[in-house]
Structures are given as structure tokens and as C-alpha cells.
């Protein structure tokens, strides 16, 4: 077998694993349920927007994007944290690997399959919100709503890789909880830093555990970069280089976690 053929087979395995994972997930009720739930809560957002006194459109987008964000976070963490254990228990992992698929192709293929499914759910929710906004407010779609949705999708890729990485070391439930806890913590970093550097509260909080905590955060993805929801509804725009940075961060962090997961996976006995 030439080197070229080896690459071709590896790519085919990756593509097959990707398409299988995406197909399996789209047939599961979990994703369908997530889509239905997002539609219902988006409709509820409209009701809340209608009964508010000011900025109904902003309130609508705030709620709708928050729903899509929460769904994407939960779905990514849940799917990725359970993948390895589920495939091992069912022995489908053994069958696929014994069919000539490499561990790397299995890992990346499944990651892409899960990412495509979560992105599809987020996109479906966004399109529904777009439709509702168009009919209810009859204004043009805020450009930042599109960017904020892109941020949610990119963040879900990072969380998928993070949960997948964690699931190679701990049980699925713990991997899920760890990912969710990290998501909450990493989304609160700037608030914590603000309190920390404040002349009044800073002195009081300037203790070594907090300093260590903030230092440790540099080893994790800066998730706040992906969070553009609060900007929607204001007449602000984002510079193009911000989008490029967001994409770069997503590729770097999800790539890093996948590489680390692969290093662990290669050494694992199945």
C-alpha cells in the first residue's frame, strides 16, 4: 500500500464515521426534541418581548439566542461525554476499528459528525427565530444575530472537543459535569477579573486561591470571545478581524483537545 493509498483510506474512514455519526444523531429523538424545545422557547421569547415596554426586538433576540446557546452547550457536552462509553459498551467501537478504521479517523469523524448535528440544531433554531422576528417585528435582521449564532456554533465545537477529551479520562457523567462547570466558569471570567482588579473589592479578594484560579484559566479556551449575544440589538458592528480571531480560537482549542484526546486514545486498551 502506498503512502497516498494510506491517506485515502484514512480520509474515507473519517468521512464514513462522520456520515454515520451525523445520520445516527439525526435519527435520535434527542436532537428532534432539542429542535422542538428551541422552537417552543423561541415562541415564549416572542410573548415576553410583546409584553415588555421597551426594546421588544432586543428582548426577543436576547432570549432566543440564549436558548440556542444553552441547548448547544448541553447537547455538545452530553453527546461528546457519552460517545466513547456508549460505543465501547455496544462493542461497535471494536467492530469499526477491527474493520480497518484508525483510531484517529474514528475520533475526528465522530467529532465532525456530532459538530454537524449540533450546528444543524442551532441553525434550525436560528432560522425559526429569524422567521418569527421577520413576521412579528417586520424589521431587517440584525447582522449581529447572525454573528452571535456563529459564535454559538464555534463554541459548541470547542465544548465537544473538551467533553470528548474529558471522557477519555473520567466517567461520562463526570465529563459532562466538568464541561458544564468549566463553561459556566469560563463565561464568568471577565466579571471575576473586574471584581478582582477593582480598587475597593480587589484588595479584599486578593488571595492566593483566586490568583491561582485566574492563572489556571489561561490553560482553558477563552469562551467569552464566542459570546456575542449581549451585543445583539445595539447598533454596533464587529470588525472582520474579530470573526477571524473567533474562528482561529475555535480551530486552535478544539484541535488541541482532539490531539490530546487522540494521544490518550492511542494508548488505551479497549
Amino acid at each position, binding site marked *: *500500500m502506498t503512502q497516498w493509498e*494510506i491517506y485515502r*483510506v484514512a480520509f*474515507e*474512514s473519517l468521512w*464514513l464515521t462522520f456520515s*454515520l455519526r451525523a*445520520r*445516527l444523531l439525526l*435519527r*435520535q429523538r434527542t436532537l428532534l426534541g432539542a429542535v422542538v424545545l428551541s422552537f417552543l422557547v423561541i415562541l415564549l421569547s416572542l410573548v415576553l418581548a410583546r409584553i415588555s415596554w421597551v426594546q421588544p426586538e432586543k428582548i426577543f433576540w436576547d432570549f432566543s439566542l440564549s436558548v440556542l446557546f444553552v441547548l448547544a452547550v448541553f447537547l455538545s457536552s452530553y453527546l461528546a461525554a457519552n460517545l466513547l462509553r456508549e460505543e465501547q459498551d*455496544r*462493542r*461497535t467501537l*471494536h*467492530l*469499526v*476499528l*477491527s*474493520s*480497518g*478504521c*484508525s483510531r484517529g479517523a474514528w475520533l475526528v469523524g465522530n467529532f465532525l459528525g456530532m459538530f454537524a448535528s449540533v450546528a444543524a440544531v442551532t441553525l434550525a433554531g436560528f432560522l425559526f427565530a429569524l422567521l418569527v422576528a421577520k413576521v412579528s417585528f417586520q424589521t431587517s435582521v440584525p447582522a449581529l444575530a447572525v454573528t452571535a449564532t456563529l459564535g454559538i456554533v464555534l463554541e459548541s465545537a470547542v465544548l465537544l472537543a473538551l467533553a470528548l477529551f474529558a471522557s477519555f479520562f473520567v466517567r461520562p457523567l463526570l465529563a459532562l459535569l466538568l464541561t458544564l462547570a468549566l463553561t459556566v466558569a469560563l463565561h464568568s471570567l471577565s466579571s471575576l477579573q473586574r471584581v478582582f482588579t477593582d480598587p475597593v473589592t480587589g484588595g479584599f479578594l486578593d488571595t492566593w486561591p483566586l490568583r491561582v484560579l485566574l492563572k489556571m484559566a489561561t490553560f482553558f479556551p477563552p469562551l467569552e470571545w464566542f459570546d456575542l449575544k449581549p451585543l445583539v440589538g445595539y447598533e454596533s458592528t464587529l470588525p472582520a478581524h474579530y470573526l477571524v480571531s473567533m474562528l482561529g480560537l475555535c480551530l486552535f482549542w478544539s484541535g488541541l483537545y482532539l490531539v490530546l484526546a487522540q494521544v490518550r486514545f492511542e*494508548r488505551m*486498551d*479497549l
Partner: protein
Amino acid sequence: MEAETILAVTGVTKRYGDLKVLDDVSFSLAAGASLALVGANGAGKSTLIKIILGLCHPSAGGGQLFGHPFHRPEGRARVGYLPEFPSFWPELNARELLGFFGRFRSIDEPERTRRAEKMLSVLGLSGRAGRRLGGYSKGMLQRSGLAQALLHDPKLLILDEPMSGLDPRAQSKLRDIFSALRAQGKSFLISSHSLEDIRLLCDEVVVLEKSKLTLSGPTNEVLGRLLQKYQNSEPWDDDPMGDLSSGL
């Protein structure tokens, strides 16, 4: 002319911490020949199969499958593997499952569909091939597993306790299929407790006891010595269950 060696296991040792599951196990299998792995539960048969398929890493030693080291996927691609208690993605049906594994094995259309339909028909699954695998019985799952293992017409079939959990009728059917495959010249590596199956399908036997290879050779000779040994020993010798049952 000497037959090509399709499987070579060389000094394989496997440890889990202080526990030695396999200790310096070596044997080989020539093309067209069949070999049975025999041993009590926990003797290391399944671990050895996992090492051969690259699912476990040996602590020492290694080997080759079709001339490729165990950890490389190229050798595994030429093997058909049926695990003990196979189960699949419940969202797929048998036709889709075979389609997926057929694509994995690089079988192009229309050959893939032709082979899948043939397998489904031979294994008596045609009528239910459109039903989701989640609703299949154990026997049907076993047959689906065999279909995926045979789809790419492999030279070597690795079967881990292929009869376990099946009713006698299903066992008899599966035995007929294996015999027909054996007559076609396919090689088998079988882990089994059934001496009847081993006699029917295998030319050679490798006995694993307490993680070591203790006996190997032609089937009749090894099975004869093994039976003699068992007749001269107490049941469950060295087995903690033996103490337990005597206290009942």
C-alpha cells in the same frame, strides 16, 4: 510450497498492573488453516484476540496480521471479526449496517448491494432487513454480525465465542454456515468452549491456562490430552468457586 503465514503471535505478554493476563504467548496460523483458542474463563483468550485486532496493546512481544503489525489498520482490513454478543447501532437497519461496513471495506457499488443482499438471504435476514436493529433478537444480531464479518470475503475469520447465548437450533445453523466457509478454504481463529465446534472447524488448538500457552498442536491430539487431564483432576481445581460450592 509452504503456505503463507497470515497470523504470527510472538511472545505476547499482557499485564494489567500486577496482574499478568498473558505470559509470553507465541503461535502462528498459515493461510487455509484454522486454529482454536481454548481455555477457562479469564485465561486470556479474548484479550489475545483484542491484541491481534489492535484493540489492546501488548505489554511485551507483538506479531503480524497479513504481514502488518497488529497496531496498523491495514492487516485488520482483511479480517472478518465477530465479537461475543455483537450489538449494533439501534437506529440502523441490517441493510444500512451492511452498506456502512461494505463502504468501510472499500467495496464499490453495485457489488456492495449484491453482496449485502446475498449475505442477508444466506443468513435468513432478508425479510427483516428493513427493520431497525434495535428490535432484533440475539440470534438475529449474531447473524447480522456474521454478515458484516463475511461481507468483504475475508481470508481470516476471528470469532469470539460465536455460539454463546444462542439456542440449539441457531447454533446448528451457524455451525453449518461455518462448515461451508471452512470447505471454501477460509481460515478461522476461534475462541470457544465447545469441543464439538473445535473438532468440526479447526486443525490446530492452542490451550491457554493461567495466562500461559500450555498445549498446542493438532486438534485431536490436543483435545485428547486435554480431556485426559480434566478426567484426572477435580472440577474447579484452583477455582474459588470450588470452595464456595463445597460449603453449600
